[in-house]
């Protein structure tokens, strides 16, 4: 299986962390919190729909609410496929970090 890109990894993790509460805004906030950078609200929809196309995410519809102009929320959930992909990334991350000599990080 093709490796996830970094942004895909971050978003999948956000969705996993949020569990049943993962929709556009919450994902965006979670991603911002995790990376420490502000994200344009539109910027996550591209990766989200790519992940959806790859069957790593599935969507469900919530109830329409007035503060959303009568539109329903689209909730994202990991598919088993998505879970496996995260596990794979995690293994790889662990492996590539494990045998590295101690890095001297420059203080900025």
């Amino acid at each position, binding site marked *: 299986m093709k490796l996830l890109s970094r942004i895909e990894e971050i978003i999948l993790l956000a969705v996993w962390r949020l569990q049943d509460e993962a*929709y*556009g*805004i919450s994902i*965006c906030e979670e991603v911002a919190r995790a990376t420490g950078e502000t994200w*344009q*609200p*539109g910027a996550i*929809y591209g990766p*989200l*729909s790519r992940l959806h196309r790859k069957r790593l995410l599935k*969507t469900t519809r919530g109830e329409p609410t*007035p*503060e*959303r*102009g009568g*539109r*329903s*929320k*689209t909730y994202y959930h990991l598919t088993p496929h998505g879970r496996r992909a995260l596990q794979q990334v995690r293994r790889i991350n662990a492996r590539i970090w494990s045998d590295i000599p101690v890095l001297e990080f420059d203080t900025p």
Partner: protein
Amino acid sequence: MNEREHGGPPALATMILSRLMDRRTAEGALGDLEERYRTHAAHDGPTRARCFYWSQVAAAVPGAIGNLVYWNTVMLGNTLTVAMRNMKRHKVFSAINVGGLAIGLACCVLIMLWVRNELGYDRGYPHAREIHRLYRQFDSSDGRRFSSVNPAALGPALAADYPEIVDAVRFMNYNWSVTRDDQCFNELVALADPAFFDMFSVRFLLGDRETALADLPNIVLTGETARKYFGDEDPIGQTVRIMDWYDAKVTGIIEMPTGNTTLRPFDAMIDFGVHKPLWGRDLEDWKVGNYLTYIRLRPDADAHAVSEKIAGVLQPHFSDTSVAVRMHPLLKERLHDVAGGGMITYVYVFSTIALLVLLIGCFNYMNLSTARSSGRAVEVGVRKVLGAGRGQLVRQFLSEAVLLALLAAGLAVGLVQLLLPHFNRLALKDLAVPVDAGSILAFTAVALAAGLASGSYPAFRLSSHPPVGVLRGVPLSSGGKSWFRRILVVSQFAISIFLIIGSLVIHRQLDYIRGKDLGIELENVMVFPLSGPVSNQFESFRDRLEADPTIVGVTRVNAPPVRRESTASGEDVGWEGKTAGDYIAGFGVMGCDPSFERVFGLEMAAGRFFSADHPGDLSDGVVLNETAVRRMGLDSPLGKRVSIWDSTGRVIGVVKDFHVQTLRDEIMPLAIFPGWGIDTVCIGLTGEAIPTAMSLIERTIRDYEPGYRLESRFLDEMLDDQYAPEERIRAIVDYGTSLAIFVACLGLYGLAAYTAERRTKEIAVRKILGASVAGIVLLLSRDFSRWVLLANLIAWPVAWYAARRWLSGFAYHADLSPVVFLLAGALALVIALLTVSYQSCRAALRNPADALRYE
């Protein structure tokens, strides 16, 4: 939804966003955005929130546009590839399509160039919009008549009395001999008021515009004329001799604004006032019309109001007829006659022909691409199955048509370059292919329009194939909607037949005119203006020439008898027995020598022509033509006294009617006075040894006037010139017709090829079952002949109507015989059958085994 009430984001922005978004994610994303908007609005106020919302829209736009461009380019690339492959695979069809469109486009370009040239007349004068030419309109029980010449007093009086009129210019040009030392040329000398220079924005190369024509004996030359006489010398202050009348001093060298003009050409200009000392003309006269008159209005003047004001100024001077002054804008001089009609008709006729040829080309494309639609059905089916929408398919086929049209446009440019010199000779023009942005844009637009028009129907037809049937292998009936194709073929041929009839009618009419007995012998009669020394000793000059056997006779006239120079109106004509009710709108006046009858082979209906044996004839005689006698209501005309203007005489004879104009106009009543204004020599030659006779004439004149150079013309040539417009129209219509038929046949050829191909197996089976070759050719040709016959039925009434309208412009015209119509129909049928027969024969002669081998 009202955004204020609900506190939602701007509706417009939402709409734009939803347009830009992928439909699948739109619901969730838009909802998220709105939620954020509300959060913002609650925290920072609605303005901040709106800013945020719009910034999201702005962020989305570039990507969306990029996507659009990217995918459209990809699709276009694909379309082009497919189109190219298709064209390569079906070379004949593509050639027919491109060729037909290219010919149509080339026709359009040539005709548009011609139209542009015609519309461009007189636009070179900066004041063109303000300049009007005056006409007189006579209304009487005898009908309405326009006169292009006005009395001398009219122009100056108008300029003086009406503040809206800036200037008036009286203008007339004459063909005079102008001599300097031993150089003598015939020049067109214009007599005009000095205001001419300002009105027509004449540029002075030398001399002073204010004083150039201040004195009567001054003369102004055009640059070219000056070079002819003076070469590199300074012409100012030099003198030239006008006829044998007087010496004129050159005071200016002028240059007219460039561009085509309806103004009469001239080589030199003299003040209009010369009319008075020269011929004793009364320049305060209000009655006799002799001069062209132009007026220039103030730029802010309302032309319509002015024309109403001045309409009646001549009426007080005419008691028994109604006369109105009419203003005709200079810019309309070229294309519109003051009486209505004019060249504008031909602008329409030619444009129509060009459009029809283009239309036939477009029809070809529609026809052939729909006929062959079954060939593309599988492609359409596959595309549809893969998710192509109808709109995408329509766009694909339209792009194909446009691509083809652009190819055709490129070819058309080449064709135009190739044909333009020929077309110029034909139309007597000096057209060039314009390269300015506007023209190129217009041409591209026409080409695109042609592509879209011809692609539209096939695009909708082709994209409508249901994919399932096609892909399952159910044969597609391309004959299902072939009625549309039939209509196209029928209209193509109807157009062609219409044009054939048109050109046949024009041919017949011109042949009729040429063949009609004019009643006057114009062949081998040469004509030139009379110069001073010769006119003084004309009798001896005449006797010396007439002694030569190659010369029939020498005579003098007031004007070459192929055009009438002088026309009197009702009141100017008086005769014994004239009653108050007798009014003849136009009465021709002519002057000549007694030898006129011999030189021109006239026949007398009664009495005799002027004769040297009756000296009284020359002082007090007049000859009328039959029309004059009839219109004047004279039972026994001989001996009656007739007066026109200041000429008067007793009728000594009646000459049989003869034409002095083109056959467009009816024969006018005519009075011939001996010796009236005779300043033109006509010499009748026997037709043998013409060069010898001409050099003899020149040598003889040189005995009187050394250095004379003979510049003469033949009358039949001059008459031909008068028919030149019709000749040009004939030629252009002929070419248009040929091209239309050619393009239509191209299409028919393609269609026949397609039909033959489609029926290959049917033909093979028929042959095996014993059908003869002739039978199969007949089978394949029958359909097409039926269409052509139907086309005849449509074309005939339209052509009949158009031909009648055109012919009614001629006073003498050939009858509209049914033969023309039958001939045109037969011609179209034969051409169509010949076109089809090649394909039919090929199909019929093919070995049936080849076609059935794989069955």
